[in-house]
């Protein structure tokens, strides 16, 4: 599946990249990303995840062709 990251996450991951293999839900994806980049563990815990511009929780079944948007805590204003 495709992953898009923003803000501080771009200092640790490519802006867009692909994750292959069995990643069925948000926590599985979070674990995979932690393995890719252990320094990001705490940051990933604070992020919200979205598919089709809707936030997802861990009950959402991720599909191979999904694009997952990963949003760090907001700092607008």
């Amino acid at each position, binding site marked *: 599946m495709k992953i898009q990251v923003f803000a501080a996450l771009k200092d640790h991951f490519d802006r867009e990249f692909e994750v292959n293999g069995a990643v069925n839900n948000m926590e599985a994806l979070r674990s995979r990303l932690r393995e890719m980049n252990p320094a990001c563990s705490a940051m990933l*815990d604070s992020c919200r995840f979205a598919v089709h*511009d809707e936030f997802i929780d861990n009950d959402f079944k991720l599909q191979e062709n999904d694009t997952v948007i990963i949003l760090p*805590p*907001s*700092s*607008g204003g």
Partner: protein
Amino acid sequence: MIPLSSFPPAAADKMFISAEPLDIVALLAGAHHPKAGALVLFSGEVRSNSLGKEVDCLEYEAYIPMAVKMIRQILEEAHAKWSLQLAIARHRVGRLSVGESAVVVITAAAHRGEAYAANRFIIDKIKHEAPIWKCEYFADGTKEWGGNCNCHKVTGDPQKHIYESIPSDIPSHTMRT
């Protein structure tokens, strides 16, 4: 060079997200309403120092599709909670210098209580929830991505926020000028 990471907003989105400097005077001029006895304008501006360091410039990035949707929802929520004549919110993206406006919120209502409360509610919600991020570039060459919303450290859930304004404490029917 500092990369401009947010893509330019489409025309329909420019009501809420702007890559151009925010024209506060023009926004204000368009915000007067015959039934509004109170208008509150908030402008969030770039400070010259942060974290004890001199700020060179800021860059705001947004995930525009969701930022637009969420700002629209926040304004609708404010309209429903307070009887507003008008609510406007526009956030800047791109690179900003010290003194520039990063976000403008205008609320107009019959009386000032509603206009103030709604304005505070809107800016709080935008700061905590809308997918918009600030990166501070300091005069010493360092940079820091802002973390205005650290609520998850208290709530344990990135979706649960603590707001400075607690609208339920201010029933709108008790507020009259």
